């Protein structure tokens, strides 16, 4: 075990008091920044071609959480997005469906209606997304609203202010409360790694979220730059791998924001395979939070199928 050799007997003990939680999180070994970045850069150079590429492209499409999180979102836009989620490439029925559609809570009902019977999940952001600056009562209600409207997955944000000022217990309790409010819905915890500053913090926040009951840990809201990067995702995948070794539970990872090209997506898939293992090459355990990525994947797919370069004119706008 690489991370958990710091004298911890059982993970259940760790969460018994804030003091122990803090000691555990601060006791996690530091991330070798240079090493993590070099490793991620090396994994990014793998050459994936022909049949492997075709497989990777289809897998990446099936892992997408097709997302629209704008103040100007309308029911019409969400309906269009759902249509695209069901049939990404109208010219090619063999293109797989995406995993989920991700919207704000007030548009969950619209998306749910459109996706009825398709097998595609509806994900909703909640807990005063994207800043997370609100009282716990409001965050819990926000979550309950989303679930009541039919959300299958809830993407919550952590209180970065509390985390950065060392109040880990507060963050832990908040995630636990939302976990409870979300009921059967899948809980994705957004760490907003762009605001956590260091890889050490990313590792701590990942463990914190997993201990508090997250089903998925997610890099970013997409509203903060930098959003998802390969080294950050690598650190999170390592945390997930170590958590699995310690508990036997498999937690998912979702990089979101800034992944726009098929080439980038394939780099992520390589990193998943080499870090967490092939079990994670599954929409149940790995997702991309993206919107424009889908078109690039479809164009690459078309290039493989037809043998000539496609143009953006032949794919839907989003």
């Amino acid at each position: 075990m690489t991370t958990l050799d710091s004298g911890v007997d059982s993970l259940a003990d760790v969460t018994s008091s804030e003091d122990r939680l803090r000691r555990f999180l601060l006791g996690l070994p530091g991330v070798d920044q240079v090493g993590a970045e070099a490793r991620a850069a090396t994994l990014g150079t793998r050459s994936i071609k022909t049949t492997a590429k075709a497989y990777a492209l289809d897998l990446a499409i099936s892992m997408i959480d097709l997302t629209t999180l704008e103040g100007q979102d309308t029911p019409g836009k969400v309906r269009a997005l759902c249509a695209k989620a069901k049939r990404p490439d109208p010219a090619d029925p063999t293109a797989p469906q995406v995993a989920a559609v991700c919207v704000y809570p007030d548009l969950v009902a619209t998306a749910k209606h459109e996706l009825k019977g398709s097998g595609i999940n509806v994900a909703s952001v909640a807990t005063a997304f994207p800043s997370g600056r609100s009282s716990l009562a409001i965050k819990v209600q926000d979550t309950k609203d989303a679930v009541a409207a039919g959300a299958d997955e809830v993407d919550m944000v952590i209180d970065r202010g509390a985390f950065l000022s060392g109040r880990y217990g507060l963050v832990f309790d908040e995630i636990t409360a939302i976990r409870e409010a979300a009921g059967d819905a899948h809980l994705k915890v957004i760490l907003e790694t762009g605001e956590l500053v260091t890889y050490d913090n990313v590792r701590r926040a990942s463990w914190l979220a997993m201990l508090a009951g997250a089903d998925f840990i997610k890099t970013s809201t997409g509203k903060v730059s930098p959003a998802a990067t390969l080294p950050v995702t690598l650190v999170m995948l390592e945390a997930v791998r170590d958590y699995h070794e310690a508990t036997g539970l498999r937690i998912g990872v979702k990089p979101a924001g800034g992944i726009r090209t098929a080439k980038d997506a394939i780099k992520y898939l390589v990193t998943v395979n080499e870090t967490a293992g092939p079990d994670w090459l599954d929409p149940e355990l790995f997702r991309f939070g993206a919107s424009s990525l889908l078109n690039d994947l479809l164009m690459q797919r078309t290039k493989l199928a037809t043998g000539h370069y496609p143009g953006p004119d032949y794919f839907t706008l989003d």
Partner: protein
Amino acid sequence: MVWRPTLPTKDTPRLEVRKTYKLYVGGAFPRSESGRSYVVTDAKGKFLANASQASRKDARDAVVAARKAFAGWHARTAYNRGQVLYRIAEVMEGRHQQFSLEVSQSEGLSISKARVVVDASIDRWVWYAGWADKLAQVVGSSNPVAGPYFDFSLPEATGVVAVLAPQDSSLLGLTSVIAPAIVSGNTVVAVSSYERPLPAITLGEVMATSDVPGGVVNILTGSASEVGPWLASHMDVNAIDLCGIVDPEEATELEIAAADNLKRVRRPAEEDWSADQGLSRLTQYLELKTVWHPIGV
């Protein structure tokens, strides 16, 4: 003893600087993605330089760059585009000697004949620059219609134009195929003459240092037969000039590939680059937009 640069003497002659030129894509000078280069010789077979040999992926990148540049270039006023084209001519004038030498070496002309060719090339940029804000008046029209409409047609740019430049005329020919495409607001991916790429490379350097936005003109050196099919079948290319394809059967193949997205195709033909060019190349890469504007009855 420490080596220091000294003036060359008889015993220690100057080391030659043997250049490997790069491509011009999106306003930058990248090497070919393939890492390939080839030897460029003068008309008598003497070594001149190494040039990058563009691959299909370089062509793909160039199309992306050209598409990205299209909106901005197309949105500029015709007057401004004319100014930018004139600026190209100005910067070329400053490199007159370099162009003359390269044309002379590449095409085997005497230096004085090469100078005349460079003069003509610069004049051609000036001539096309003048067309920028006159094109709409000559090609556009107001149309009499039987209804309460003011009906008019105006020319707009087609989009991304792939140009397989002439193999023989390395500067005047190249100028005469690029200028008419960009003056109306199109962006260009040009594949230079294979055996005579040096004037094209220098033209790329001129583009980079005049006011032409990056991506409006992209210049690939290499084989038109290798890169051409990828450009012809590319769904994001709107027109193609097959000028540099020598073999008629090959041209037919490319024309068939280009039909997939209804590209405007200019077939190879006997060309006299020193003659008056007329408007045929200018109007080849235009779309006429007709507007029916309601008027009070």
